[in-house]
């Protein structure tokens, strides 16, 4: 792999940019791999990357039904934060946020991590109490957050109407090292690094069955032939239910659509991420100037990657309430992704009833921020055949044991 650098740009400038190579190889699948990862989104690719980097396991294939990073990795609103209430959540999201800090250097790909700060508005007395509690919990967990006054909120984000008629801003949970990153670049960077380690990334390769023998996984059937494997990692977000059915178990997951949209590009007007969970809306400004907007999930199970129109209206309506300046903005495009929701709104990183088969799913509406930490924990579990400290609390059996990691209250809607 040729390294990206200022020198490389200069070198290519002298030869009309004819020397750039493809970022990753597109090989034919081999008949057997030590580890097969299903799903070449951020989490799947990060799993493969840390398997190679931390454990030296490089005989790995990452299989993708569509195109690389074309699912939720390319459909989210790119927010990165780790201000969670529960200890296991704060640990894995903070691990991920910490890895994002140096991800561009690690991957030799500019993922444009921008720690511009995340404001989560408290607009009811309940939220004030909740976020004060979260700030206190974060202090013990080593996550840098603070509860700030409405005046400070206005200072950080002047375009916000803090007096709002329905829900005045009473304060906010402020995480100064939260922010955004370029979602595609995260997937591409991991893919390029994986390919460089000799791993095979195989796109347009849908898994149609999982073969097993004596309670252990032996391989997968795909649209490009059968592939044998020693261990299998399922990292397919919204379609986890289908893969679990092939493997012979059921998940406590329901798949629903979550929508997002961007406006036409405008001059820089906000340099923080603002989330308003009482009114169901959040917004940040991309480096291109577009306002990136997200809201709540739809109310019914859905696999179509399209959402309901009334949700767009609800999201925009709530945003106009807190950001009056967006009322005249034109929306450029809108899309939906299929998110895998668990009952406690926390992910599942776990061994499964099928031996040698591991699953990483249930990130619901908040997976992008967790990509590096999730991959790190999943790789650790696959390599050692048992969940490590980051993953242990997120096992499947927590539902049977009633050991929930309840973030549905702490995280509200935008998670």
């Amino acid at each position, binding site marked *: 792999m040729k390294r990206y650098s200022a020198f490389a740009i200069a070198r290519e400038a002298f030869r009309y940019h004819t020397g750039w190579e493809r970022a990753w190889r597109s090989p034919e699948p081999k008949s057997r791999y030590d580890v097969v990862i299903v799903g070449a989104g951020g989490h799947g690719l990060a799993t493969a990357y840390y398997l190679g980097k931390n454990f030296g396991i490089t005989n790995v294939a990452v299989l993708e039904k569509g195109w690389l990073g074309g699912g939720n990795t390319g459909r989210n609103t790119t927010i990165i934060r780790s201000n969670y209430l529960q200890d296991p959540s704060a640990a894995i999201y903070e691990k991920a946020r910490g890895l994002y800090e140096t991800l561009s250097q690690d991957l030799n790909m500019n993922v444009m991590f921008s720690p511009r700060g995340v404001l989560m508005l408290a607009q009811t007395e309940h939220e004030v109490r909740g976020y004060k509690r979260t700030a206190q919990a974060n202090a013990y967990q080593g996550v840098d957050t603070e509860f700030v006054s409405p005046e400070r909120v206005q200072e950080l984000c002047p375009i916000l109407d803090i007096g709002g008629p329905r829900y005045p801003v009473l304060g906010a949970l402020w995480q100064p090292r939260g922010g955004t990153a370029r979602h595609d670049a995260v997937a591409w960077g991991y893919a390029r690094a994986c390919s460089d380690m000799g791993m095979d990334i195989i796109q347009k390769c849908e898994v149609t069955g999982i073969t097993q023998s004596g309670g252990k996984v032996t391989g997968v059937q795909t649209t490009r032939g059968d592939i044998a494997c020693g261990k299998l990692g399922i990292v397919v977000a919204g*379609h986890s*239910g*289908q893969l679990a059915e092939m493997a012979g178990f*059921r*998940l*406590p*997951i*329901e*798949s629903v659509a979550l929508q997002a949209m961007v406006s036409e590009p405008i001059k820089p007007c906000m340099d923080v991420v603002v989330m308003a969970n009482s009114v169901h809306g959040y917004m940040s400004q991309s480096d291109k100037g577009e306002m990136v907007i997200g809201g709540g999930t739809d*109310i*019914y*199970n*859905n*696999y*179509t990657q399209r959402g*309901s*129109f*009334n949700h767009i209206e609800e999201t925009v309506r709530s945003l106009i309430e807190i950001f009056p300046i967006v009322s005249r903005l034109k929306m450029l495009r809108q899309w939906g992704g299929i998110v895998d929701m668990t*009952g406690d709104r926390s992910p599942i990183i776990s061994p499964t009833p099928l031996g040698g088969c591991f699953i990483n799913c249930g990130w619901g509406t908040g997976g992008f921020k967790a990509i590096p930490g999730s991959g790190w924990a999943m790789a650790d579990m696959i390599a050692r055949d048992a969940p490590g400290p980051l993953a242990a609390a997120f096992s499947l059996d927590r*539902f*049977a044991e009633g050991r929930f990691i309840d973030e549905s209250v702490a995280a509200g809607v935008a998670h």
Partner: protein
Amino acid sequence: MLILHCPYCDLNADETELAGGGEAHIKRPGMDADDTAFETYLFSRKNPRGPHFERWRHANGCGKWFHAARCTQTLEVFGTYPAQTLEPPADIIAKIRKRHPDWQSDTEVKVAS
């Protein structure tokens, strides 16, 4: 926008009038059931990519619960029926079968296994 027919009001209700209630026809196990059965009842969901039976409430209407058969892949609605129904009615099964010849209902799967 999703439009479902409320079997009580006998009118078509927009999604904004409705509240979703998740998977339908989940049977609560008896007192002698083991932990696994209760875990399945409480948490495990079919979450199919295809025909799905679900509970809905006409929240901004009559306020009553009803069931709907809907395809999660195409958003096609096969029909709605009152909540006081233990299994999907035969006419709705027939409609689903017409679209998805390979589709198996839960009761048939149980018989097969």
